[in-house]
């Protein structure tokens, strides 16, 4: 065999490129999405992303039901953001129909919204720890998260799907006797926060596994239109609560959390994502305290009777935008109402993961196979939010179950680096 034929066989001296499909069984989360990676050795040189495996046709259904039925449907878009979608949706409809919301209702919506952020960020931190191989930390964080879930149950009756907002107000009050429960939970989290920061941000192994991994630069974050903690980790100070305030956020002084608040320059890697989310838990505690202390007296809803509300909505004509900064980023709802029609003419739901799909590409490129789980998890993806449709693919798309294998690789890398 001469030199030339050897060169041909190994592609002119370059490393051979392998294509590895991962999913629809997701490598990092229990939700379906398919990544197709081009690998050169261990390095990722290309990635193609195919979502849609959890598409249920929710917008299609919502345009065929009356608005109150659709409100409950919107709550079921996502199990974790189960108040973020209704908050954006009610605001969109209220803007379109010109319905006022009493101050007390605005504060109650804000309190539940921020409690959701606390439990969602803790859930994410646990998943992140698991992907890195720190299952002790996963169990600790998820145990701590239960306090928030208990508080939500005590305030609303449910751990998820709280059914709190309705057009023009809220369905349930937070009476004064419940306030001590909330203060107790907030004090519990304040005491734990430093422990969390120590466990994640001052841990040598976590730092080695997450620093300079999954990087998205400031410019990429802007041109790819990313949202939420994912974009703030890259130093983009974009937060709907600050930029275009609504509800009780308009009454308090807020700023967008970036790694600068921790005293480091934003890099946009996984470590910065941890910083932003942990510091946002502290910010949420402050917001809830502000709301509890300044909870205004008054009505819960401007149109409390449901038949009257339905009649008012049927008479409404116009279009409206509703936005809410959910734990994962901005949720955006657009509705158009037509007079004399029970259902909406148009309902467009934009969940945060939708805009954080493309940022995955620069985050993956150049990193190793063993980093795939933590990079995939770093944007805190939520497929059910993003997909929302219902078609089952019968063609039997490539489905390679490699999750266990990937988690094993990821853990081995942690062990290797800690040695």
């Amino acid at each position, binding site marked *: 065999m001469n030199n030339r034929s050897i060169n041909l066989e190994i592609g002119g001296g370059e490393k051979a490129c392998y294509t590895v499909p991962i999913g629809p069984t997701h490598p990092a989360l229990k939700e379906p999405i398919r990544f197709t990676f081009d690998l050169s050795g261990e390095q990722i040189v290309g990635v193609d992303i195919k979502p*849609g495996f959890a*598409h249920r046709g929710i917008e*299609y259904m919502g345009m065929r039901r009356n608005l109150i039925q659709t409100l409950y449907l919107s709550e079921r878009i996502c199990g974790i953001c189960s108040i973020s979608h209704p908050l954006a949706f009610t605001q969109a409809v209220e803007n379109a129909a010109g319905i006022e919301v009493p101050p007390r209702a605005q504060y109650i919506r804000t309190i539940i919204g921020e409690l959701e952020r606390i439990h969602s960020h803790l859930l994410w931190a646990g998943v992140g720890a698991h992907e890195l191989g720190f299952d002790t930390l996963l169990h600790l964080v998820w145990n701590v998260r239960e306090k928030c879930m208990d508080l939500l149950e005590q305030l609303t009756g449910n751990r998820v799907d709280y059914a709190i907002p309705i057009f023009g107000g809220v369905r349930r009050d937070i009476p004064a006797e419940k306030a001590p429960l909330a203060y107790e939970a907030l004090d519990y989290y304040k005491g734990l926060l430093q422990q969390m920061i120590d466990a994640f941000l001052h841990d040598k192994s976590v730092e080695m596994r997450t620093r300079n991994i999954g990087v998205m630069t400031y410019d990429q974050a802007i041109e790819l*239109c990313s949202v939420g903690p994912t974009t703030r980790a890259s130093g983009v100070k974009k937060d709907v609560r600050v*930029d275009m*305030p609504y509800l009780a956020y308009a009454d308090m002084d*807020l700023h967008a959390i970036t790694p600068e608040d921790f005293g480091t320059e934003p890099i946009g890697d996984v470590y910065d994502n941890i910083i932003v989310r942990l510091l946002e838990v502290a910010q949420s505690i402050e917001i809830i305290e502000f709301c509890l202390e300044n909870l205004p007296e008054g009505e819960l809803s401007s149109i409390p009777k449901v038949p009257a509300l339905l009649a008012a909505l049927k008479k409404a004509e116009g279009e409206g935008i509703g936005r809410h900064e959910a734990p994962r980023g901005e949720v955006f709802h657009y509705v158009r109402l037509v007079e004399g029609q029970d259902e909406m003419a148009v309902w467009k739901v934009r969940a945060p993961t939708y*805009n954080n799909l493309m940022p995955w590409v620069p985050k993956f490129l150049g990193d190793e196979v063993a980093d795939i789980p933590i990079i995939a998890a770093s944007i805190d993806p939520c497929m059910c939010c993003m997909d929302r*449709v219902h*078609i089952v693919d019968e063609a039997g798309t490539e489905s390679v179950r490699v999750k266990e294998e990937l988690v094993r690789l990821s853990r081995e890398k942690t062990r290797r680096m800690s040695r």
Partner: protein
Amino acid sequence: MNPETILGSFRTVLGAKLLEDRTIERQVGTINPKPVYDLWVVVDRDTLHDAVAHLCEDFNPHLAVISGDDLGSDLALNYHFTAGWGERYGEVTFTIRTLVPKNDLRIPTITDLLPGAQTSEREKREFFGIEIDGIPDARNLFLPEDMTIHPWRKDLEEETKGSVKRLVKWEERDE
């Protein structure tokens, strides 16, 4: 961002091509109410790319999403931008609306100006059957790769219904 700054600049640059503009002011806050603004403009299809280019040049916009609205003989596309982030009370929503006739469903891509628009353009393509001229990736995104029906088109309702697989027998009762 002052709504007049952005609308004034659009009136200067686009002139008569800016078919319609309106500003909706809302009061937010319960203690000390302040105004926030939703801006809506209408341009025709040929002006859309120029309008977005002007927005990208001067206002550093963020594309929230593109929504579609089936009006019968036309399809309306709303490009929902936000501009002025990073500053307390600094952001406005800015929606560019354009009409596309059903008998010639095509629109130029804006991914050359804002690469992040690709997800939303691919979604409009598969759900409304509109061709996006110049889009770098025209495959289906959320729907299966071999699916050819367009579920959000109201004139293709029967086709869509036919494609929905009834998973449980009793679901058919509501038909």
